[in-house]
């Protein structure tokens, strides 16, 4: 579904991504781990069109995204839920969710999408008239993921969705992400939702182990390791340099 081939990204004079290649198959949950400041968020932002690579290709269903702007990339089916959520604090939960459904296809399906996100996050239905500046940290993260789903995505990319959350909320978000993808293709979703893939970048290793089928370890802007999440997290180099386990 998504093929990133050998992209190099510069910010100013600094090369922040070097020869990054990764792929996501339909219905997969893929994790990205690595030290802070080494390229995880830039990778997601580059796929979203917020940074443009100097070299390489980003193919989505075989179509090159490099020359598309972020809006066109969302329309193609790729949505980023950025770190911190970036909701509009003075607007209600409902208004923020509706803003997610801004592409023509998402607008057309907004009622089904609303039904889907309220079913996934019942708390948001209770809070739909509440302004986002009155939400707790966990509620904000849920609203941000829900707004991402309102874009009717095929690939949902989540940057640090559990940052600052209590342990039970991390568990709850992990469960929701798992449910979003589990069983797709076998049981057709009556809401008409498309089969979803997820890229998750998060520092919470327990969450990563629960949610991601495969993982990439990014260090110094390069993919150092890729494989099954369990294998990557148990790799001796990752354990020593990233997890701090001798």
């Amino acid at each position: 579904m998504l093929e990133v081939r050998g992209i190099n990204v510069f910010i100013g004079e600094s090369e922040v991504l070097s020869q990054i290649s990764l792929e996501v198959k339909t219905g997969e949950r893929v994790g990205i781990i690595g030290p802070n400041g080494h390229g995880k968020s830039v990778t997601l932002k580059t796929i979203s069109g917020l940074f443009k690579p100097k070299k390489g290709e980003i193919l989505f269903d075989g179509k090159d995204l490099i020359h598309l702007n972020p809006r066109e990339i969302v329309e193609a089916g790729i949505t980023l839920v950025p770190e911190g959520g970036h909701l509009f604090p003075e607007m209600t939960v409902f208004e923020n969710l509706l803003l997610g459904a801004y592409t023509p296809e998402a607008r057309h399906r907004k009622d089904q999408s609303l039904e889907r996100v309220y079913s996934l996050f019942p708390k948001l239905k209770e809070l739909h008239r509440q302004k986002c500046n009155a939400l707790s940290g966990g509620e904000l993260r849920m609203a941000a993921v829900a707004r991402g789903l309102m874009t009717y995505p095929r690939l949902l990319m989540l940057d640090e969705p559990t940052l600052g959350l209590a342990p039970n909320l991390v568990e709850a978000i992990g469960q929701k992400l798992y449910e979003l993808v589990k069983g797709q293709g076998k049981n057709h979703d009556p809401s008409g939702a498309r089969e979803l893939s997820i890229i998750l970048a998060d520092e919470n290793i327990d969450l990563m182990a629960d949610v991601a089928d495969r993982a990439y370890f990014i260090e110094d802007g390069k993919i150092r390791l890729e494989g099954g999440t369990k294998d990557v997290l148990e790799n001796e180099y990752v354990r020593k340099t990233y997890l701090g386990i001798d």
Partner: protein
Amino acid sequence: MNQSVILRLNKVSRYFGSLAAVKEMSLEVFGGEIFGIAGPNGSGKTTLINTITHIVPSNSGEIYFREKAIHDLPTYSICHLGIARTFQNPELFGSMPVIDNMMLGAIYGMKHATGSEKIGHVKGILKSVGLEGRESTKAGSLVIGAKKRLMIAIALATHPQILILDEPCAGLTAIESKEIIALIGQLNRQGITIMVIEHNMKVLMNISNRVMIMDHGVKICEGTPDDVSKDPQVIEIYLGKKYIRRGTS
């Protein structure tokens, strides 16, 4: 840890409109201990330390530092007495170098020290927090782990007796969190009393002498890390069942 109370709160409340963010909170922190605070998002943890440092004043109740009432003192006076804090999100002067950010802390907190004493103090802290060699780096260009360490360094530059840390490990990788844990332990061994809010329970349970859990502005549990982590109410509202299955180590 000695058994003398260094910080005491007596029925402290803080309301936002009709919402009690902190409600009749009483607690004691002992000199030299590491006192952990945890609780669900929105339970009032940050508001509690905002009232202690008078960033938001309490509506009622008393706060004593070494038996001196501080609840009516402005933030800078509380800092001068020896209480320093950090924030959840790094609050730094991004366009200024690391060393200048720290000097602001020293100038603010060590008002009776000479210039050379302040510089010597700051240079010593730079080494202990692992920022040696990065004096000239602009604070805004640091990665999150270094920003968190700089914020601790600025607080240390004020020469505190109590250091209050608000989620020092949020957003950090496991290895960066370990470095922060080691730093907190080192500061505590130097005699600084630590209050720390943290959601990373592996961190909190491994470093704290005592832990308090808050919910809806009130204390629901206080005790040793072992006791608190086995409390059924704490498991239900905060830790979740997976945490118990996975353990704290």
